[in-house]
């Protein structure tokens, strides 16, 4: 296959430039805030108490970096083409509370009296159109202690002020990875504490690939559904199932930049429909239609009308001008144009699943007992199909695994716990991050065998 051929068929899903109407993830000051937006000419981003137009972001490559600058009409986003390496180092260094190697840190003590520039002075500078960089220079000039600091501390001071007076905005591509990481950082409870490495394992262990028909129970807001759909690339189906009359909300799916060909493959179907009987010939098509008709109605109350699960509220972690680098942080999403996702599954697809079974099963349902789901869903899988069940607690999975063993329903059973560690790699200062997420949850995986009920 020639390279040109590949380029041609690369989906919009993998686009490298933004376009008007696309979904974007804005990373402000290196993770301080994470904001999902629909990129339109009229869209704005609130920085401090001012609003910046997002217009300059249209048709830029994902990965571009912007800086808030003060113009005559207020702040605007200006693209930066290179960043200093120094600040990158410091960025990472924020994790280390003490600098080993510095012989004497008595001089590091500092307090707010050292700065002679007042808040009013700074506002005045701003009104006069001073740029962020100019304000920072003024602050340094008026700091009584800056000269006494070590060069490391000086750089740290500069970075802190830069974040405040000249914030940087990184234009990130919304993908399963970036969306998962943003949620895990800011709103982990909304995605059942599903960390990106655990999500990655679910997809691998359930062998998700193009042309798969993946049965999912997604009670993590659509993150799982979106991640599966991303891997299908418009072939096969991700079928969300549920009990009762309302599918579970999957709003997060709308943060992905899925084209129509992918959206059409994200469907839902109630357990009742899927289970009617595995021998499809005994089900009259009118029965099927009736079943689906019910669902079609309930769908109206489903995801398309529900409000986004992330609100605009900012999580205040610390706003003091203290020694730490933690500042107000938020993860926010604005309602975006409803995309046609989460339709009911087509009749022929349901028919095919009843005849052939699903290729795999993934469950992420924080509040439901795992075994009560697995015992009903496993029979819907083809023989030899893999499955993976996520839970933040181990014990429900242990009980489920035990029942599967006893019932001889599956083989290759194991509970896995991913353990992820990030490192600071800097000259003479290499070590694992001092803080870490200690729990990546647990995954029960296995393979359905023939002859199991």
């Amino acid at each position, binding site marked *: 296959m020639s390279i040109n051929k590949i380029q041609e068929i690369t989906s919009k899903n993998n686009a490298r430039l933004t376009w008007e109407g696309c979904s974007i993830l804005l990373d402000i000051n290196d993770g301080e805030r994470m904001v999902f937006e629909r990129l339109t000419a009229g869209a704005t981003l609130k920085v401090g108490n001012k609003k910046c137009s997002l217009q300059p972001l249209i048709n830029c490559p994902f990965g571009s970096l912007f800086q808030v600058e003060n113009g005559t009409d207020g702040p605007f986003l200006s693209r930066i083409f290179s960043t200093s390496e120094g600040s990158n180092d410091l960025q990472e260094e924020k994790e280390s509370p003490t600098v080993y190697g510095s012989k004497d840190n008595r001089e590091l003590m500092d307090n707010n009296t050292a700065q002679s520039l007042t808040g009013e002075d700074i506002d005045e500078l701003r009104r006069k159109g001073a740029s962020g960089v100019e304000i920072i220079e003024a602050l340094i000039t008026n700091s009584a202690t800056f000269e006494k600091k070590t060069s490391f501390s000086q750089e740290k001071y500069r970075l802190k002020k830069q974040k405040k007076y000249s914030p940087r905005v990184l234009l990130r591509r919304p993908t*399963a990875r970036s969306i998962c990481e943003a949620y895990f950082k800011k709103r982990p409870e909304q995605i059942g504490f599903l960390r990106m490495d655990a999500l990655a394992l679910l997809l691998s262990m359930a*062998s998700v690939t193009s042309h798969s028909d993946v049965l999912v129970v997604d009670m993590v807001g659509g993150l799982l559904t979106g991640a599966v759909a991303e891997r299908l690339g418009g072939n096969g189906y991700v079928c969300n199932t549920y009990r009762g009359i309302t599918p579970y909300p999957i709003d997060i799916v709308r943060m992905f930049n899925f084209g129509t060909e992918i959206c059409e493959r994200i469907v839902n179907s109630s357990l009742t429909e899927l289970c009617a009987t595995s021998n499809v010939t005994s089900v009259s098509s009118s029965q099927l239609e009736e079943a689906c008709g019910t669902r079609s109605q309930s769908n109206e109350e489903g995801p398309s009308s529900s409000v986004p699960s992330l609100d605009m509220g900012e999580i205040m972690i610390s706003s003091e001008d203290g020694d730490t680098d933690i500042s107000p942080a938020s993860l926010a999403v604005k309602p975006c144009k409803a995309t046609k996702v989460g339709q009911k599954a087509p009749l022929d697809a349901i028919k095919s699943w009843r005849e052939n079974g699903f290729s795999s099963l993934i469950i992420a349902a924080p509040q439901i007992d795992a075994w009560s789901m697995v015992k009903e869903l496993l029979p819907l899988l083809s023989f030899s199909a893999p499955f993976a069940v996520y839970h933040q607690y181990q014990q429900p999975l242990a009980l489920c695994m035990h029942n599967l063993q006893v019932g001889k329903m599956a083989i290759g059973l194991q509970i896995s716990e991913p353990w992820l560690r990030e490192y600071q790699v800097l000259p003479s200062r290499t070590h694992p991050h001092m803080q870490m997420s200690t729990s990546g949850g647990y995954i029960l995986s296995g393979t359905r065998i023939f002859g199991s009920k």
Partner: protein
Amino acid sequence: MLSMELENKVSFKRCIREGDLVIVYERHDNMKAVKVCENGVLQNRFGVFKHSDWIGKPFGSKVFSNKGGFIYLLAPTAELWTLVLSHRTQILYVADISFVIMYLEIIPGCLVLESGTGSGSLTTSLARAVAPTGHVYTFDFHDQRASSAREDFEKTGLSSLVTVGVRDIQGEGFPDEFIGQADSVFLDLPQPWLAIPSAGKMLKEDGVLCSFSPCIEQVQRSCETLKSCFTDIRTFEILLRSYEVRGERLESWENHAGGSLGSRKRRQRSTDGSNGVEASVSATIVARPSSEGRGHTGYLTFARLRCVI
């Protein structure tokens, strides 16, 4: 991998046929890949299994030997393949593989560059991820290893998705034809810093690179080199801890009237189904980390090509 092609998809109806690759499952830590042929036999400690008995049975079936021993026949997946492939080199396992695919954002249609090919463990998963329209170009320094990998991809039905080249990527870099074409680049080389400048040229804007290295010194040097053209340089390590589940009969102290440690049978493993049901009545279901595990595989360093256009 069967499920990637529509006509070969595993289903209730899809039965084992002559020429299929099946994974013979003895235990979770004992599997092998077998090509089914009419007159073939498989011999192991459980006896002799005739392939002819397998044909026509659904995947996932339990089949018996002449001596009544049994095995399961599974459809191959990338994960199972990783457990059965022949180790020509140190291989990557599911934890690293899944994280790499996720972090590199590899999806259908992507063009991916890899070096070295090694035993093809990661390559198999890369191919599955870019299917049906993407492609993986993988390079190995060793001619012999490249050939063996090609044979493997033929066997697993991935050859249309993978091209294996013989090339010293550390010395020569990736071929010029890929400049600006790659969505992602993966390096598993002894001196990755030598290949990083070339990898940077191959990537599309905002494209992501991953370098896998067992030793921290390799990481330190790679990170130094990455700084010139890359950003978001992050190093991770991922490990997987596996748990066994068993019904453990922990006695109440009151009922434990003396006696030394080894004097009675106190435990019942529930893994074997026959007495499992009974055990589950009074036993506590406990999970225990498998006592020995992989303590380290390698460090994964990721970096995003800095946007300058």
